[in-house]
């Protein structure tokens, strides 16, 4: 096989190279300058600790890109704890994202280390015009606001209407006394003594701050606080008292004396969706889970009961914000996208798509409530419900996690069953640990 000789009309190699070089220069010098890159030609790195928010971020980014050609986001989602760890390692080295969502107990550390910039006057004004003072205060550090609120965790009580009807119990319990009574009627135990359906699903096992968070669902209605702030801005435990003892006693009774829950049976959202428990204290995202896993489940959502008829309803509210890294190279574009993300329509979208609540004012919830009335307690809670939140201090996660190390052991400790003195002793030891961590952090005080 021989190649054909080239015709004399073709260009030689040198000419071809000259042409290519000329074309390159022309495109760089001529066309390049003639069409400067648009401000919207930007790709933002977004990190989230809630994988269920990924479709939401993508949907909003797609919408934003319609008016900002060339806009893209790179999303990285991991579990919440891994997300916090990645951020903590990446932010000081400047290898973090442009935008990230995180709890205030982490963002306060970044703010303290100058890794986050306080909001500009414009963003500050935007926040104050569209969110409650409660949320603004929650996201403030040393008098300055940081980030834009994204979502809100609010805890309420899920109850299975069919099981209540079957047991002859009317409506959701409004006090813990009623709750116990209902749970005792609903719980099912087979002939071998094995629990096949729990009356209520408390958080009894595993590890991590969530265990203490659920303990606070009982502690706060009982009149206690996990930690209390003093007038001088110091902190100390708020549960080495009657409320703390009552809360622990209730847990011990539920597991050991009344036997309406058991660490061995299925728990949490899965258990509620699968009909193996009648009641559960959880946030709004469980509605989305139920719709996915058990769309025909007949359930209601009500405020977590009062301690007694004279006590107030208490609801844990955890505002969650989205931030622009202090080291972002796309700061202006990031803030612009965040403002778009928090528009009323997109704010409602987060609840519709993920089940997480949003706390922006001026959102019309009617279409959502028409479709899923169970959201009402979360988006428009009754006026007699008092809210409480996580103190914004850097060691709060450690305080909760350390207490969570011990609580599951106490719930099943048989020496605490019917023994108020032992319960008091256990609460005292737990509270001493809380105070000790506060002392190490240099923020302990009683006055």
């Amino acid at each position, binding site marked *: 096989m021989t190649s054909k000789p080239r015709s004399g009309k073709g260009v030689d190699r040198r000419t071809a190279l000259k042409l290519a070089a000329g074309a390159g220069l022309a495109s760089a010098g001529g066309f390049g300058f003639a069409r400067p890159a648009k401000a919207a030609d930007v790709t933002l790195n977004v990190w989230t600790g809630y994988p269920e928010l990924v479709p939401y971020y993508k949907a909003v980014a797609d919408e934003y890109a319609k008016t900002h050609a060339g806009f893209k986001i790179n999303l990285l989602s991991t579990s919440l*704890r891994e997300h916090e760890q990645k951020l903590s390692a990446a932010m*000081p080295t400047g290898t973090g994202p442009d935008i990230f969502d995180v709890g205030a107990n982490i963002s306060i550390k970044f703010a303290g280390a100058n890794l986050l910039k306080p909001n500009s006057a414009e963003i500050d004004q935007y926040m104050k015009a569209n969110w409650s003072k409660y949320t603004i205060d929650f996201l403030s550090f040393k008098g300055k606001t940081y980030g834009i609120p994204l979502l809100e965790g609010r805890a309420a009580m899920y109850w299975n209407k069919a099981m209540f009807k079957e047991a002859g119990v009317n409506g959701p319990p409004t006090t813990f006394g009623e709750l116990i009574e209902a749970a005792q009627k609903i719980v099912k135990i087979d002939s071998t003594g094995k629990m096949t359906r729990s009356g209520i699903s408390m958080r009894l096992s595993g590890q991590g701050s969530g265990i203490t968070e659920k303990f606070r669902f009982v502690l706060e209605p009982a009149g206690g606080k996990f930690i209390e702030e003093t007038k001088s801005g110091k902190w100390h435990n708020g549960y080495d008292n009657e409320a703390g003892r009552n809360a622990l006693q209730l847990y011990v009774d539920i597991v050991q004396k009344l036997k309406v829950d058991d660490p061995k049976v299925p728990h949490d959202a899965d258990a509620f969706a699968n009909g193996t428990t009648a009641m559960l204290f959880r946030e709004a995202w469980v509605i989305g889970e139920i719709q996915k896993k058990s769309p025909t489940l007949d359930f209601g959502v009500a405020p977590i009961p009062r301690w007694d008829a004279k006590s107030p309803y208490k609801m844990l509210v955890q505002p969650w914000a989205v931030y622009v890294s202090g080291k972002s190279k796309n700061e202006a574009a990031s803030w612009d996208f965040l403002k778009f993300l928090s528009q009323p329509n997109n704010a409602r979208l987060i609840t519709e798509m993920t089940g997480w609540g949003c706390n922006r004012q001026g959102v019309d919830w009617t279409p959502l409530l028409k479709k899923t009335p169970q959201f009402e307690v979360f988006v428009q809670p009754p006026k007699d419900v008092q809210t409480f939140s996580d103190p914004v201090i850097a060691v709060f996660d*450690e305080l909760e996690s350390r207490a969570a190390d011990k609580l599951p052991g106490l719930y099943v400790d048989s020496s605490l069953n019917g023994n108020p003195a032992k319960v008091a002793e256990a609460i005292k030891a737990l509270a001493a640990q809380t105070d000790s961590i506060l002392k190490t952090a240099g923020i302990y005080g009683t006055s």
Partner: protein
Amino acid sequence: MSAPMQDAPNSIAIAEGRQRDLHARLRRAYLAWVDMYVSRGQWRVMTFCYLALLPVLVLFGYVRVLPTINAFILSVYKWELIDPIRPFVGLDNYWGLLEDENFLLALKNTLIFSPSVVVASTLLSLPLALFLARKGKLSVVYQTIYFLPVITPLVPVSIAWKWIYDYNYGLLNYGLSLVGLPAVAWLTDADIALWALVIMSVWKHLGQNLVFFLVGIRNIPSVYLEAAMIDGADAWQQFRYITLPLLRPILLFVVVTSTINAFTVFTQVYVMTLGSQAAPGQAVRVIALDIYYNAFQYLHMGYASAESVLLFIMVLAFTIIQFRLARSQKEGLDG
């Protein structure tokens, strides 16, 4: 006085002669060594080997040795990861650990977990290896079955075991129910959870030890065993006086690597404590898990580094003890 004066040149000559002799002997020894060990060709081979190893050694130094040295340095500082200020605190982190009930509990659990896994996985794998060393038709199949857990990634394996241990739907309790035994709360019962982890870890490492023992057994020259058989030794005597002594280096290797693995156990503990239907954290808290929480959850990097240094010292001490014991036994046999 004259005699010494006359003796002096002789003494010097003798000394010089001895020195020459020594130099000559050293030179001969050096040349012999060069001839024997480092011929020109071998120099080239050695140079090539070290140059080829250099990138790996540099990488190993960068990702392994440097961080280890750094951990020693960090252990005397109070460093909170995000906080740019790192005050020097001397041995405060170490004193703090001695009073930290979480660390003491983790130490206790680790000291229960590690020997249990090492002893069980060694004692189970050795007879299995002896059995599988015989050339049977199914030997390779069994070896593959036992080795499968070793090559399966630990995270999915741990999740699978979490289901196996499930009180209500787990395979293990189903098996117990078939023989009329009551269900066991493998993970949620604080008294049992650590032992559940021991069982799972033994299952995971059994195949690896088995392969090491198989290699050792198959390398024992058959003439020893044949001679023993001719001398009338029974199977136990052959194992006790021939196989076991010749397996000692492999046994030491297995025990040392199993000890290091067991002391640094993390993944299965972490996975099995996640979620609401998991083992209570305190029941299975081991040192590596405690280090992880201190470092990456609470961001106490200095404190976690001190904990890592203590773990390093412990593993090193156990390894040295095992080497010493093995050596003293060998000397006992040789002597």
